[in-house]
Every structure is written in C-alpha cells, then in structure tokens.
C-alpha cells in the first residue's frame, strides 16, 4: 500500500496542514491581536481604562470561546461560502479555524501583555506617550517573548482543530487520519499521519520557542 500515490497524498497532507495552520493563525491574529490589546488597554488600571468597552469585549470573547469548533464550522457554512466561495477543502477550513481561534488568541495576547510591568507603562505616560505609542513601543515589544510563546500555543491548537475540519473535507493530515483510520480501519496509515503531526508540532513549537528565547533580553 505504500506506493507513490500514498506518498504523494501524505506530502500533500503535510502541505495542506501547513497552509491551513499558517493562514488561519495569521488571520486569527489579525482579529485576536487587536482584541487582546483592547482587553488590556481598556481594562481597569490599563493604559486607557474604559469600563464599558472592556465589559462588552470581555463578555463577547467568552461567548465566542464557548461555541464548540465543530458547531461553529457547520453554523457558519453560508458565511464561509460568501468569503472564500466554497465550503469544501483547506481554504474553506481556514475561515472557521481563524474565527474560532481569534477569541482564544485574544486571551493569549491579553495574558502576555498583562505581564508588562504597569510601572513601565506609567513611565511612558509620564514622558507624554499617547495610548497608541504605548501599545506600539511599550506593550508589544516588552511582551514579545511571551507573545511568541503564545504564538506557539495558538499554532499548535489550530493544528489540532484543523484535523476536525477533516470531517467536512477540510484536507490536511487530520483529514487523512480520519478517512483511513476511522472510516477504513487502516490503522497503519493513521499512525503515520499521527507521527507526521507530532513532527510538525515539534518543529512549529521549536521555531516559536527559539524566537522567543532569542528576543528575551530580561535575563
């Protein structure tokens, strides 16, 4: 069974998985990063406290996070079609992946930015920094090592979710594992995809952690 076709399928699976993870993570951050920043800046005691905006965001993020991914995937099919023009394949899986990871990433970003010493923010304010300057020049650069660790968590979580997209023909390694392992009882194929998944996770984790360590000047 390990013919050329199977090999090509595996390689294809790796490619699709990486594509889904990379693009979904990117768009999840496009949505989640600003949300996370706002959660910190608007929070009581933040750089620009805004209790009402904070409360609304806080509740909205929790609501979004409590929707199970598999339900979201199906519920937003019309939206997915409107955005990418299809509901099948890797590209279609990106839409629900990014949407469901965004609130999770907002929380990751929030916790990273909260590690920044409020005293440093106060120092920047005492120098006449605007809120935007504080975000760009204090919060984000100071939290960079922690944000990168969060990036590793986000990417690996999205990788895990991408396997569920296999149920809707999402493609990728997870799709192969489900089709062969679950539907056809070909456990050897499933095992191989599993190992490949582990390798991909290790590499992703390694890249992010190395970047995090390198950017950390605190020790």
């Amino acid at each position, binding site marked *: 069974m390990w013919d050329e076709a199977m090999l090509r399928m595996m390689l294809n699976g790796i490619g699709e998985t990486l594509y889904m993870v990379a693009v979904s993570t990117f768009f999840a951050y496009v949505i989640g990063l600003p949300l996370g920043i706002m959660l910190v800046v608007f929070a009581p005691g933040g750089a620009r406290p805004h209790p009402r905006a904070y409360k609304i965001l806080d509740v909205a993020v929790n609501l979004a996070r409590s929707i199970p991914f598999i339900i979201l995937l199906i519920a937003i099919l019309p939206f997915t079609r409107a955005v990418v023009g299809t509901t099948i394949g890797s590209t279609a899986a990106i839409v629900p992946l990014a949407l469901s990871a965004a609130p999770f990433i907002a929380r990751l970003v929030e916790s990273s930015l909260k590690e920044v010493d409020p005293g440093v923010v106060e*120092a920047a304010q005492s120098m006449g920094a605007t809120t935007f300057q504080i975000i760009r020049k204090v919060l984000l650069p*100071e939290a960079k090592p922690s944000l990168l660790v969060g990036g590793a968590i986000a990417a690996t979580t999205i990788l895990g979710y991408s396997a569920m997209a296999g149920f809707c023909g999402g493609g990728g390694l997870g799709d192969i594992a489900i089709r062969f392992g679950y539907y056809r009882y070909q456990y050897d194929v499933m095992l191989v995809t599993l190992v490949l998944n582990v390798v991909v996770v290790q590499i992703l984790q390694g890249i992010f952690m190395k970047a995090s360590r390198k950017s950390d000047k605190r020790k």
Partner: protein
Amino acid sequence: MAAVPEKPIIEIRSLSKTYKTDTAEIHALNGIDLSIQKGEIFGIIGMSGAGKSTLVRCINMLEKPTSGTVLFDGRDLSKLTDAEVRGARRSMGMIFQQFNLLMQRTAEGNVCFPLEIAGVKKEKAKARASQLLELVGLSDRRDSYPSQLSGGQKQRVAIARALATDPKVLLCDEATSALDPTTTKSILALLQDINRRLGITIVVITHEMGIIEAICGRVAIISDSRIAECGRVEDVFFKPKTEAARRLVCPEGRVDRFRSSRRMRIVFDGSSAFEPVIANMVLACGKPVNILYADTKNIGGKAFGQMVVQLPEERDTARKMFEYIRSRGLTAEEVRENVG
C-alpha cells in the same frame, strides 16, 4: 545647596484627590497648597500611605485631581487638553523606585525612548543619548540591557532618560528606596550635580529624613493627606512644630521603650567641632546619662545629626543639662511621651 529661589515653577492650590470605592470615599489628598521655586531641590516627605505618591502624580497629571489646581510654569494643567498635557509632561522628567526601564531595550534605547515619542529623528536622538549617558557616567554601558545593570546603574539610565527631553522639573518618586546606602549616596550626588549644572528643579518624594537632609533646601511634610509643615529643612529638622514632623525627625520607635524616663533630644547642626559635648556635660553636672539613640555624621570636621539621651530623674540635674547643652550653642528639646 539649591539655587536662590526666584519664582514658583510649580504651584499647587487647594488640591484634593478622592478615590471612590464601592463602600467608601478615600481622601488621598486634602486641600494641599504648595509652591516649588525654580531651581530648588524640594522634598516631600511622609509615611507610606500619607499621599505623597498621589501628590507627585497630580503634578504631572498621571492622576487627575478631584479639585484644586496645579500651575506648571504658570499654566493650569487641569485646563489643558490631553495633547497639551502630554506636551507639558515632556517638560517634567520622572524617575521611580523600581526604575521602570524598558527591559527589551538597551541603555541607549531607553534614553532614546522619550525622544522617539517626541518625534525626534533617530540620529539626533542617539547623539543626545550618548551625551546623557556620559553625564550619568554610563558611556561604557550603552549597549547593555537593564537586566545586565546593577540597581544604581539602572537608576542612572532612568535619570538620563528622564533628562532626554530637556525637562524643567525632575520628579523623583522614592528614587533611592530600592538602593543600598552607598549607591543611594552616589545617586543623590548625581541629582545634586544635575540641579547645579543644568538648573533643573528637582522634587524629591521620600519617607527617609536622611535623603531630605542630604540634598533638599526646603521640605513639606505630608501627613494624613495634608501638608503638616513646610519650610527650610534646617528649620523643620531643628524645630519641628507639628507632631507629624517630630515623628519623622525623631528616631521613631527606638526610644519608645524608655517611655517613663526624662529624655532630651540634641541636634548637632555643625556648629560644634570635635568637642566631646556629652562627656563634658556629664562631668559638669556630675550625673551619668544613657544614650538611647545617636545618628551623627562628621562632615568636614563638624558634627551633624542628632542624639537622644535619657536624663537623670532629678528635675534639677535635668534642667542643668538642658542649660549646658544650650550654652554650647546646640539645640536641645525635651522628648515627650507621645513621640514614637
């Protein structure tokens, strides 16, 4: 000491700050009136929780006063727009107890930071940063990150950073409280040097009388959210008028155990040289005394500081001792029961 006072650069008028919690209102500051002259080193001292940190944050509007006004260089800060307040803040440098440096930037990057915020070009900012790092004696640590610097070096970087935008005032919030005594001394010397050379007004917030004595010309004592006493450091130190001042000036707690005894506080203002005053007093009066507390410094062959002695129980001997000390040109006062 500080330059001769000319005109106030900071004027605080009936300033109050109230925090509302769910259950109560907390009056952090209550009717504060202060005026700080151009070019002086002004101290604000108080126990923790007295409101001194809130007061300094009202000066640069990091805390918005509930009522009252803060005039900075003649302008009412509470009437300015947000953008104007940010502009005014660039004329007020601030340093902190925990230094508050950007950990992901080098010493140079930290000093460049306020200049970047002010929109100064990169090359110009770097040139200015290297000037300032030289001023604080850290030219060789330009590329070091804060984690590679000692506490004293970090505070020097913070001072250089605070001076980057050519401020008129430097606010120091417990700037030496996290440093050891030797480093504290060198930082105080640096602040004094900056005051003299650049003519920058310095406002020092502290809970230690020693800091005030060392560099300040005038001092305000803040207690229970109010100014208890304000004046020249010598006057407040030698003749504290209020309970709050006495508590800060007198060695708190240490003489408390001798509550029942008659005690005398002697202040050395540098007028007596190496004369063994206490020993001579004992010989002259023929009764021993017990030294309860002493904190004297020898500056240029003159004694500065204070001492608390327990006097003999006989009223006459005690009175004689008071007279003896006063006759030597020293300040002596009875330490009352409620001190400490």
